[in-house]
């Protein structure tokens, strides 16, 4: 069958086209995951209140007043740098994968103001959290200090934090401001029961965050490396799907989870099909004792309780996605092997194979050049049909707690939802999306696989 007629037949199958459409949708999400979300699925924690609802819930009257938080990073190139005093050179540097803004202060007085302006979308904040890592390196006479301030839409300035004078030669510092912190309250002139967040972020509008770096005139040269700053006003609602129990973005987990589902499903099915095809061809073509051994092995593998044995082996080999892939593949090759074997048995008797044998072709040559190309179309269909079961098994294993906890898989999302109270909170926006995603992706492959089988399997065409 030519590719053209195959494509024509495929296009006529409605289920096949629907399956292809769904698959395409997920492939797009998998490829563009980093563009579709600005958060890391697991590393960016506390983006909003624990188990915050999706932001679009505010269209419902009941949640209209829910606090819309805001959470973002300010990377090195997003600062507006203004030199107030001295000749300061700026440069971008990369250290261990993170971008840094480097400011080189020569000898003498120096003063730089970094500004980042952003639109604060919500009403009165309940909490704000700001974090920054910076490194300061200076010659022995260096003497520099940093201070942080926030300017509200009315132009009023709040200075919640100021570093001490840095004097040592090299230092890496991490400053974090939490509005509930007593030091912050004191710096803003509030009492112990004062609310720093309420004082600063009173209404929506343009706020600017400022970092002022100052160096005394008698100080020597100083270099300051400024890392990524995080700014969070945790809201009661967040993003497309809300956040989980750690405040991680659920939409990012869903989007990146697509990558893992496709990767695991495709690679497990691929390994299983390669193994199954090889065993099937050898078993069918060579026959005899080898055939008996291989088919009995397939029988044994088919008669083990799959999920229990996967659980025990997953516990034994450790939680990593590649272990999961290999375990699933090891228990999935038998169907393909049987199918290929029966195909090989009928191909073996065909004239072109007999002709090759008569011409003195070796067994390996015939298996590789004559049998293999002829079983390939059906092998391809069985590959597609193995993918959904690989996806289902992987998600089940993850859900039961045998997945790699450092990967944002859909099964892990559901496991967290069950373990950390999504059910008691009726957080359906956390439970439904990963489950529906697994279902739709598996269904897409079933639809495509069935269509391929109908087109490629000669038995179907006779009907």
């Amino acid at each position, binding site marked *: 069958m030519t590719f053209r007629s195959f494509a024509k037949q495929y296009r006529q199958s409605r289920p096949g086209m629907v399956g292809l459409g769904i698959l395409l949708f997920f492939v797009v999400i998998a490829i563009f995951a980093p563009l579709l979300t600005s958060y890391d699925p697991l590393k960016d924690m506390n983006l909003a209140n624990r188990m915050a609802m999706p932001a679009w819930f505010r269209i419902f009257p009941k949640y209209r007043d829910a606090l819309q938080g805001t959470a973002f990073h300010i990377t090195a190139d997003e600062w507006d740098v203004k030199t107030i005093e001295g000749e300061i050179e700026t440069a971008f540097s990369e250290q261990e994968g993170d971008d840094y803004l480097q400011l080189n202060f020569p000898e003498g007085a120096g003063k730089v103001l970094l500004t980042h302006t952003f639109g604060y979308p919500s009403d009165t904040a309940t909490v704000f959290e700001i974090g920054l890592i910076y490194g300061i390196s200076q010659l022995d006479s260096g003497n520099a200090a940093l201070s942080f301030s926030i300017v509200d839409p009315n132009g009023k300035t709040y200075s919640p934090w100021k570093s001490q004078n840095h004097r040592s030669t090299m230092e890496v510092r991490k400053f974090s401001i939490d509005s509930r912190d007593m030091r912050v309250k004191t710096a803003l002139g509030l009492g112990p029961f004062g609310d720093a967040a309420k004082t600063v972020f009173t209404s929506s509008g343009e706020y600017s965050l400022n970092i002022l770096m100052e160096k005394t005139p008698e100080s020597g040269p100083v270099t300051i490396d400024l890392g990524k700053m995080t700014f969070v006003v945790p809201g009661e609602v967040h993003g497309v799907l809300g956040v989980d129990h750690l405040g991680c973005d659920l939409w990012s987990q869903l989007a990146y989870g697509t990558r893992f589902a496709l990767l695991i499903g495709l690679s497990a099915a691929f390994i299983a099909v390669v193994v199954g095809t090889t065993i099937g061809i050898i078993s069918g073509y060579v026959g005899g004792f080898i055939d008996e051994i291989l088919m*009995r092995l397939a*029988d*044994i593998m088919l*008669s*083990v*309780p*799959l*999920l*229990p*044995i996967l*659980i*025990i*082996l997953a*516990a*034994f080999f450790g939680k990593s996605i590649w272990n999961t892939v290999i375990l699933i593949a090891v228990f999935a090759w038998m169907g393909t092997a049987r199918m290929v074997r029966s195909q090989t048995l009928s191909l073996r008797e065909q004239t072109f194979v007999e002709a090759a044998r008569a011409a003195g072709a070796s067994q390996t040559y015939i298996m590789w050049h004559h049998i293999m190309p002829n079983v390939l179309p059906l092998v391809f269909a069985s590959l597609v049909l193995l993918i*959904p079961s690989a996806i*289902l098994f992987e*998600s*089940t294993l993850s*859900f*039961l*707690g045998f997945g790699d906890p450092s990967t944002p898989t859909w099964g892990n999302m*559901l496991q967290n*939802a*069950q373990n950390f109270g999504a*059910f*008691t909170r*009726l957080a*359906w926006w956390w*439970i*439904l999306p990963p*489950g529906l995603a*697994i*279902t*739709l992706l*598996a*269904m897409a492959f*079933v*639809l495509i696989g069935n269509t391929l089988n109908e087109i490629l399997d000669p038995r179907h065409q006779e009907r």
Partner: protein
Amino acid sequence: MHFIRYILKRLVYAAIILFFILSFNFLIFRVMPGNPVGTLQSPNMTPEMKQLVAEQYGLDKPLKDQYFIYIKNLLKFEFGYSFQTRRPVKDEILERLPNTLLLLGTSTLLSMILGILMGIFAAARRGSVAEHLTIGSGLLAYSVPTFFLQLLLLLAFAFFWPIFPIRGTMSIPPPTGFFPLLVDRLHHLALPALSLTIIGAGSWALYTRNAMSDALCQDYILTAKAKGLAPRRILYHHAFRSILPPIVTLFFLSLPGIIGGAVVTESIFSWPGVGRYLLSATLEANYPAAQGAFYLIALATLISNLVADLAYGLVDPRIRVGQGGH
């Protein structure tokens, strides 16, 4: 004669598989993280208990002897002592077994009846709603993860509308009197059994529909129609009877998957059965418990496969009287 040889062959296969299961158990639970002795004894055992376990498993003897002692113990269902409770694993499993049997028995029976009826309706009325429903539910059965469907039912009927209990097999404290107790047990059984029924029925319906459609195209059906028999009679007495043998075989073939799936269902509904026991034992590195539960599940699988083979041999005349076939 042919049939006896067939049976003997199947029995030999079953014995070989049993040998593999036993060896797998011995190997994997000896090399599990921790030292080999550590998979049978735990630090929270008393010295006397450790001594007892060491003697029972011949831990001072060479590995070869340990293997035979181990096999002998497993064949007697002696699995050692649970690390968690220090009770014999055998007793703990025996307590949980009735729960698993109740859940799996009820749901398997219900899903078969429901699925087969759906399949017959679908085949009898091609192009009807019943047929589309059957094909749709069959497709869903292959793509919805069992655990997700169960989570949805739990979310809907135990949390959102709290009609059914969230967990367990009975209320604590259980109600008094036979009748209230029965109602309470059924109330707890309903949601897990319903979820397994829905999942199982889809594939039964799809299979029955396909087999019935093929059967209804056969010549003898045409003959029956020509004789003027009632359509109902043709459907049940002729067509359905002809697909009964594969259905019986399929029933036994479906058991391994059902038994294995108990792990998921029991953990979601906190159903104290063997599957949940295996899962928590594996997660807690409670090796004696895990190997005991796994051995029992593997054995059940093995037996249902063997019975499926024998049933197939019984109903397939080619094997029974030895004509054709292999």
